């Protein structure tokens, strides 16, 4: 079975997010006064082939996140796993 994975990473709470800060300032200066806060992280889409069980796929994804995709020292991650058609 094949799986589509969507992963979002984000700096942990309390860790400075210079990008978010700069984007917020940018949006404000464009006149978007309703903007209260901005965080910027990474978004990834991964396709995994030939894994039979969802559990297995999830395990793999978590491992990949811990090892490479996110930086567990400063980032949190979330993911979503969807079975692919065909």
């Amino acid at each position: 079975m094949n799986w589509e994975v969507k992963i979002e990473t984000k700096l942990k709470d309390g860790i400075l997010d210079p990008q978010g800060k700069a984007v917020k300032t940018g949006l404000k200066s464009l006149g978007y006064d309703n903007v209260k806060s901005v965080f910027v992280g990474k978004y990834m889409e991964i396709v995994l082939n030939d894994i039979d069980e969802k559990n297995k796929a999830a395990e793999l994804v978590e491992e990949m996140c811990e090892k490479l995709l996110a930086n567990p020292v400063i980032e949190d991650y979330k993911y979503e796993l969807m079975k692919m058609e065909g």
Partner: protein
Amino acid sequence: MKAGVVTFPGSNCDNDVFNVLKNIFDFKTDLIWHKDKTLDDYDLIVLPGGFSYGDYLRSGAIARFAEVMEPVIDFANSGGLVLGICNGFQILLESNLLPGAMKVNDSLKFVCKNVKLEVSNNVTPFTNKYDQHEIIDMPVAHGEGNYYVDENGLKELKKNNQIVLRYKDDSENPNGSLSNIAGICNKKGNVFGLMPHPERCSEEIIAPNNSDGYRMFASIINEIKDRGDKIAR
């Protein structure tokens, strides 16, 4: 005759370009603050290299909305000479003064070194002191110089002779840029953006035996004088 070099928050090559124009060419030059809403009577506006607004989000994305960009865009649209170097090139792309966009380098690494370029169009205001197809040498220093434009866009560029500088060949291409593009101009030829840094090879002392940057500024000043002469006549 006067040139202006824009300082955005995070610009860091503004003084380098200023130094070349002012001290090497003895050309009247101002630094222009990013918050200025009007421009003096300039013959050349330079958007310099650096990390405007930290280059956060995408390089050039936030700078494109700086207050000074409104008059700069007007200046460009009315035929004024605009030179965007490195981050300046990225800002020109984000402002749609030039077509296409920048991606991160294929290597994902910042790269600072000299590369060989081919002058693909020597009849622009920025390259008139080079021979057509001349191979020149210039330093690059960037992390996002991987130029992209869609197929039609590329055709247009070629058709209108807008590709001004190319990395000499794939092995000299430091970032994976499409068609080895290193610098392009707009259709009218008065707006030019390039990733390499001509201001870093305009003085013998820091770039021995390399006047390839010097000749770019000489081209521009040559053009400005020409334009002045025409008006005078």
